């Protein structure tokens, strides 16, 4: 569709050029350029500002030491970085199978004309826009229901983040599955495969690159979330490595929040250094998603 639109548009472009040069439309074009440039400039300012402030603390201490309340010059984010790793792994295990299963139901099995399936759809769109802080309160209730007295453990954080990104995973997986042409399904069904065999052996494998892209982007959103973890009462001063899904932990965004809230300048610098680490993780995940999208995504 895009290519047809482009053809038509470039055809018009040559025809209408003489009208484009009156002052009003030039001003308008400049305004559009400005709005585009604004976002890019802010991104640049953010990266440069953080880098200039934090690059000096991007040393061994940041990665190997625990957070210190007395020696602020050599405070470290070791527990937070390891906590984020545990948190992300647990979140992925909880959210990905569930998200893909739900998406397959919506796209391949559900009768879209039934009222309850339409309701499920509206529900999903709303969930995608519920504030993340609310998911934190939900996780508090779930952890109390499961009988954990201490909510600030890896499992609690992972439940909050998994529920938070579930709608995103479902929606992107559905788009990927929807893009698989009908003919592939019909061919499989015509050869005698059942509906589930068709889904499992034909549709799902063809949609894997799209699903992977969406899932990685969802995880890159979860990695920077601090608000739900704050609701769980995740303790800020942790002086040990997390060693399982039931151990108390802290996470990188929370550590950044804590350091930013301090008044000493040394903590601000440490926060900037930790932000560089966090941004590098987000960038890495996004880059991975873009590579998968460009290299492996099949277009029909």
């Amino acid at each position: 569709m895009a290519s047809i639109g482009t053809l038509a548009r470039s055809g018009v472009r040559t025809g209408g050029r003489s009208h484009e040069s009156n002052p009003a439309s030039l001003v308008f074009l400049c305004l559009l350029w400005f709005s585009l440039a604004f976002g890019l400039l802010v991104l640049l300012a953010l990266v440069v500002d953080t880098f200039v402030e934090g690059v000096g603390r991007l040393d061994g201490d940041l990665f190997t030491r625990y957070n210190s309340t007395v020696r602020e010059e050599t405070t470290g984010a070791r527990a937070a970085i390891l906590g984020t790793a545990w948190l992300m792994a647990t979140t992925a295990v909880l959210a990905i199978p569930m998200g893909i299963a739900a998406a397959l139901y919506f796209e391949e099995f559900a009768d879209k004309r039934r009222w309850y399936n339409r309701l499920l759809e509206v529900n999903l769109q709303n969930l995608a826009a519920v504030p993340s802080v609310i998911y934190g309160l939900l996780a508090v209730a779930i952890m109390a229901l499961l009988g954990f007295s201490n909510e600030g453990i890896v499992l609690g954080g992972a439940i909050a983040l998994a529920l938070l990104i579930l709608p995103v995973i479902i929606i992107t997986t559905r788009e990927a599955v929807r893009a698989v042409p009908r003919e592939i399904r019909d061919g499989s069904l015509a050869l005698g495969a059942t509906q589930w065999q068709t889904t499992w052996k034909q549709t799902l494998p063809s949609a894997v690159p799209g699903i992977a892209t969406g899932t990685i982007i969802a995880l890159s959103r979860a990695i920077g979330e601090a608000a739900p973890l704050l609701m769980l009462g995740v303790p800020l001063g942790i002086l040990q490595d997390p060693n399982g899904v039931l151990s108390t932990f802290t996470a990188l965004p929370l550590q950044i929040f804590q350091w930013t809230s301090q008044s000493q300048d040394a903590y601000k610098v440490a926060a900037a250094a930790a932000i560089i680490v966090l941004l590098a993780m987000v960038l890495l995940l996004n880059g991975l998603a873009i590579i998968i999208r460009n290299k492996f995504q099949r277009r029909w």
Partner: protein
Amino acid sequence: MSSVATDGGSPTTASPPPRTRMDLTHKVRPGEAVIKGLLRLAAAASVLTTVGIVVSLIRPAVDFFRAVPVTEFLTGTSWSPNLAPQSFGVLPLVGGTLVTTVIGLLIAVPLGLGTAMYLSEYARPATRRRLKPILELLAGVPSVVYGFFALSFITPTVLKSWFGLEVGFTNALAAGVVLGIMIIPTVASLSEDAMSAVPHALRQGSFAMGANRMQTTLRVVFPAAISGIAAAVVLGLSRAVGETMIVALAAGSQPNLSIDPREGMQTMTGFMATTAGGENPVGSVSYNTLFAVGLLLFCITLVVNLLSIALVRRLREEY
């Protein structure tokens, strides 16, 4: 990325198969019924999530409203849940949210729409392919990082040095500006989807009548895409209302019923962030305020989200 989050403006809806197509799927197998049941269960979990949210918010909130009348909560103008004399009027928090959100929208709507118009109507496809991932990156920056940016750059450098404003260390203006920056990609991405979905014949008709690109964009494409654009703005509004870390860091922690954005003010989400990290015993009235404010926040965003979803529906029916 933002377009992904809502499934909103995407014009590619799978149409139901034509009636004449033979249904090849009708083959009943017991094992498959189990699998189908499991998939249905996973889909139903999303409903359970909504129910869970409502229940987990309402139960402590009911306890709270036993101690504090609803009318006092909704109409009181003083908020001081932790210091004696206690008072539980939520309006100062709502006011803080309102001020930061309005500032955010004043930034995000024009800039987001400008970006969307450029990408949809002016940019060549190759340019668009290169620019969109960068825009998505702007949406991918963690909100705590934006909060740090507001404190370390926007307030001291932009507001104080460049504009010479007398602002406090924390103030609603910096928080609102950064909120706006954060939701630019949401507004831009969904509006672009909506404008790209406008049929090409409308543009060609406009060009054929002698209109130039600006006139076509503003008077033909924009009105035709208006419901999708409105949905994008409304979704951006919902994001701004619910955003926590930016306002917790940059807007301040003093409940303040003022509309002067140079002052510090606490928002609903900012209050929740501060209280959850505090020392309130579970079950006390001051702990339950967390859930009362959370319930109010959920209700506000629910209304806003449903409005956005309804607007997208209208867009889909048109073409």
